[in-house]
């Protein structure tokens, strides 16, 4: 590459892209240029895995425009204080080979939930595999993340060994290791325009203008179609050489991300900014140049890839485990869409796909069925005794948020036990990164990982004072108000026998309550950083001297990545279903315990479709058929039963009938649309 070669050792001033005011030029141990004046910090930052993220949001000027400009400037010249630039510049001089390692960000990779995304363990995995038995351990001293690849630098003699690791399984996911292609990800600083190298700020400004032109904020659409005919890009000389062209897209994505973080404050808003992307008519034969799109827009719903040159599934493989929320995909006018396996492959890859090449490939019912569990989701089971559990829960979480000490003094005693376990790999509601678990992990008693008896004992906290010590060290929390946000909670409760009688009077023990709570909380981190997480918490309450006449015997807390609340919203939600209401037994009485009450009673009586003593097999089968009719037609229980019993319990016939009669049915035949 001409630019890199020419500039590796010349003055920094002719490198528009990585010029930094006042930065002293330094050469590090491997002969790389270190542009950052603060050498000691820079060295420290060059530890493995530190990709030297640019501090795009730092800056103290009050004027937004000034700050924005600074941020952009800094981010583009961020190469100057990140190891990234050093590697890119110096790789020739330092005689290191670079390889890209992919696959570790795959959803199947168990390490990706590590606080650092698994980088650290990936590097030590690679070092181990690179090391010759009985030889000294191979070291990877330089690495950085680019999109979904970890780019590592190694001595040339290790290259062959390294490439052979390709295909090995790392934490459950196969790795792909290839020689690093410079052109693949070279950035703004090397985009020559019309023969001369413009300043990065200039390129950045042009790209920003281009994105602004192509982004429809209202429709959440980023239109990147037909790039070759865009006059602005032509003027920039983007398509004059293949090398420039291949650098363009990753650079564009970076500019997008930089701008986005200035426009939208919250990660959620950033995630939702774009739902649709079009890459129509871009002569794409594979995803090589555009693969970073999947990192920038992991939650994309609509993707137009039509009028490109994708030949087969292989050419799209890089996005196989990406875009988990994709609903619409257009690959029309590509050679691949003529392939007989095309539709099946895409349905298999994208579980939420509804429309493929403009044709409905999954109905709403099929989608719902896919999401549905074979065990129907019912309203919470809540069997309280004299509102004990209700009062306990009502008070518990606001006290836990605001006054943990007071809470301990009121319902915990010297025998109460608290333990905490962190499920770092739990499924998530969306693909955003999960905040690190550092503040919890040293107290996590996940018995899968904590296998030594001493550790199991030291992570058990029995008695008010030990629990106090732990709780005071855990991050501050804010749980949503139960009355105001009942849908965010799932709380169940029932009596259990066989607890120790604290008075010693009953040798066969006394009864108590088992309470299970699922919900979410905001963690208030350093600098008021807020991270939303999900939790599961189980209590055993027994009679005792605490507030409300209870004591906490057991309190087990499991924290995990935010997983939403959809899983416990009942699948059939029939607001205003009188018949169902009448047959529904013993609904819990208080709002605190019954999130579903707000959304309306369940559309089927409890236990409907489930075996029960005294229920005949025929009845059970019939109930199940009724449920199937309900789920496929959206009709109420009674109408569904009429439909299928009137057709001799033949599901097929009942559904055919429904299609014919749909338009003539009264509104009350249907369940209200679920919230």
């Amino acid at each position: 590459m001409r630019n890199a070669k020419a500039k590796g050792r010349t003055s920094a001033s002719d490198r528009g892209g990585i010029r930094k005011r006042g930065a002293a030029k330094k050469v590090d141990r491997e002969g790389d240029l270190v542009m950052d004046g603060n050498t000691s910090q820079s060295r420290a930052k060059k530890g493995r895995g530190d990709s030297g993220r640019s501090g795009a949001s730092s800056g103290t000027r009050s004027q937004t425009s000034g700050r924005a400009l600074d941020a952009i400037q800094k981010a583009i010249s961020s190469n100057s204080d990140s190891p990234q630039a050093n590697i890119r510049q110096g790789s020739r001089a330092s005689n290191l080979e670079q390889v890209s390692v992919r696959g570790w960000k795959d959803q199947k990779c168990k390490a990706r939930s590590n606080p650092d995304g698994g980088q650290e363990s990936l590097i030590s995995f690679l070092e181990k595999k690179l090391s010759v038995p009985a030889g000294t351990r191979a070291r990877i001293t330089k690495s950085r993340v680019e999109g979904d690849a970890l780019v590592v630098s190694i001595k040339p003699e290790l290259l062959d060994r390294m490439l052979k690791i390709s295909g090995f399984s790392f934490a459950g996911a196969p790795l792909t290791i290839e020689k690093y292609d410079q052109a693949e990800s070279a950035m703004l600083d090397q985009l020559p325009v019309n023969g001369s190298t413009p300043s990065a700020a200039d390129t950045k400004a042009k790209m920003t203008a281009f994105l602004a032109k192509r982004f429809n904020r209202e429709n959440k659409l980023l239109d990147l179609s037909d790039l070759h005919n865009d006059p602005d890009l032509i003027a920039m000389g983007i398509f004059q050489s293949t090398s420039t062209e291949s650098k363009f897209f990753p650079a564009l994505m970076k500019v997008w991300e930089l701008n986005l973080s200035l426009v939208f404050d919250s990660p959620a808003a950033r995630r939702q900014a774009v739902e649709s992307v079009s890459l129509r008519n871009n002569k794409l034969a594979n995803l090589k140049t555009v693969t970073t799109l999947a990192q920038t827009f992991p939650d994309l719903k609509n993707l137009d890839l039509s009028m490109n040159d994708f030949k087969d599934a292989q050419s799209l493989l890089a996005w196989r485990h990406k875009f988990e929320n994709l609903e619409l995909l257009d690959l029309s006018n590509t050679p691949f869409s003529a392939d007989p396996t095309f539709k099946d492959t895409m349905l298999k890859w994208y579980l939420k796909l509804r429309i493929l090449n403009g044709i409905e490939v999954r109905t709403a019912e099929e989608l719902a069925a896919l999401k549905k569990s074979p065990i129907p989701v019912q309203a919470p089971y809540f069997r309280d005794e004299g509102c004990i559990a209700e009062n306990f829960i009502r008070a518990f979480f606001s006290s836990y948020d605001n006054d943990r000490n007071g809470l301990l003094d009121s319902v915990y005693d010297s025998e109460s036990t608290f333990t905490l376990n962190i499920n770092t790999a739990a499924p998530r509601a969306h693909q955003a990164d999960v905040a690190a678990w550092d503040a919890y992990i040293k107290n996590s008693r996940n018995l899968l990982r904590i296998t030594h008896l001493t550790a199991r004992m030291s992570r058990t906290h029995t008695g008010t004072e030990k629990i106090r010590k732990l709780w005071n060290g855990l991050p501050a929390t804010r749980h949503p108000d139960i009355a105001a946000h009942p849908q965010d909670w799932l709380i169940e409760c029932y009596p259990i026998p066989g607890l120790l009688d604290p008075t010693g009077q009953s040798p066969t023990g006394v009864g108590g309550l088992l309470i299970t709570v699922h919900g979410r909380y905001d963690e208030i981190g350093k600098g008021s950083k807020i991270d939303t997480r999900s939790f599961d918490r189980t209590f055993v309450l027994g009679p005792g001297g605490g507030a409300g006449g209870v004591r906490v015997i057991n309190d087990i807390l499991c924290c995990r990545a935010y997983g939403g609340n959809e899983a416990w919203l009942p699948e059939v939600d029939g607001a205003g279903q009188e018949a169902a209401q009448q047959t529904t037994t013993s609904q819990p009485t208080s709002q605190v315990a019954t999130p579903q009450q707000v959304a309306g009673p369940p559309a089927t009586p409890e236990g409907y479709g489930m075996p029960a003593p005294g229920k005949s097999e025929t009845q059970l089968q019939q109930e199940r058929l009724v449920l199937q009719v309900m789920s496929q037609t959206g009709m109420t229980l009674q109408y569904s039963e009429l439909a299928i019993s009137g057709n001799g319990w033949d599901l097929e016939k009942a559904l055919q009938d429904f299609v014919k009669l749909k338009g003539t049915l009264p509104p009350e035949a249907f369940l209200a649309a679920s919230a």
Partner: protein
Amino acid sequence: MAPATEDALTKQSTDAATEFVNSFYPALQSNRATIASFYSPQASTILFNGNVVADGPAVQEIFVNQMTPTHYEVQSFDCQIINRAYPTPTATGFKTPAEATVKDISILVIVSGFVRFGESRDLPQRGFSETFVLVPNPTADGPKGKRRREWLILTQNFRLVV
């Protein structure tokens, strides 16, 4: 009888929970005919997504006859002792606190993981949380050579949470 030490109790409870988790989920997946054997005859409340299931045999019946193939993956679990002098049933009644050994405990187990309903690995991973109370099986030391499960489910609450 001297009270059991903390070491012995922690070992007993965590070993029991580990053994349970390591055998119960594989049974739900591929050894469904044994499911009923995990439940105490006294099992009281058994819940799946809020649906009440009567007893161990009913759970087995559902899994054997009606359940799609399932793949469970336990990602985290923990346990605590609820009662360290659990009134284990005996031939003549119940063990009193004075008679309780280190094995006469009830154990609270909480499990977090995911489940896939269906055979394809491409199907969605649904997060679940499950709570159990385990109690000693008074007839674990059965007739020669026929050792039964040492710990049985007294109550169970399964919920999909993601």
